[in-house]
């Protein structure tokens, strides 16, 4: 699946997007976060552990227990500040 990072999260990780192989370890958002932290350095546990972190799945705001499939687009970002 496609994982995207935006704004301060993107800057903190130095990464815009990455392709993650779907597996039993990435079957929902919470599992995906744990998996991402396990394959990356501590910047990921810091950024994705932020209590204000927002996540979307296929461009819809989602939560930690939202289920995932291999074709999903998952994005992590901070609270929005447009307007």
């Amino acid at each position, binding site marked *: 699946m496609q994982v*995207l990072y*935006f*704004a*301060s999260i*993107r*800057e903190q990780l130095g990464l815009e997007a990455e392709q993650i192989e779907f597996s039993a370890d990435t079957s929902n958002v919470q599992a995906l976060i744990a998996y991402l932290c396990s394959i990356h350095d501590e910047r990921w546990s810091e950024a994705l552990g932020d209590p*204000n972190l927002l996540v*979307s799945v296929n*461009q819809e705001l989602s939560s930690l227990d939202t289920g995932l499939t291999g074709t999903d687009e998952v*994005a992590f*970002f*901070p*609270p*929005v*500040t*447009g*307007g």
Partner: protein
Amino acid sequence: MRMVSIQTEDFSIEHETNQLRVSTPEAGGIATFTGLVSDLNREQKIESLFLEHYPGMTEKQLEQIVDQAEQRWKLLGTRIIHRVGLLHPQDQIVFVGVSSRHRKDCFEACQFIMDYLKTHATIWKKESSEQQSEWLDARESDKAEEQKWK
């Protein structure tokens, strides 16, 4: 008639309101809001503002906000433009224009769209002053504005 655009280019409020006038001849009024880059934030002089967004999702969310506004008020036309990229003080950031038969519907829908856009659209601002560059935090006052429509 509705239009939603995320763009780097500036916009003309005359053009936008004319589009609303021409496409909705039965309108009795048009309410607009134009957001500007302020020259000051928390006592610091702002030099520039960088806006990033989530392409695709932002447009989808704005369409959903217009759907909600159309369910709550009798609207004829809605136009939303949000700029992204590098902006400077006094630049236009955002435009919301709503036409309707009655001014109450225009005003309320325009304010509702702005309040929801502020709290729902996947757009982020990074502000640069002489001292520093930093991503802005979401404002409590914006959450309060959104809550009043519940």
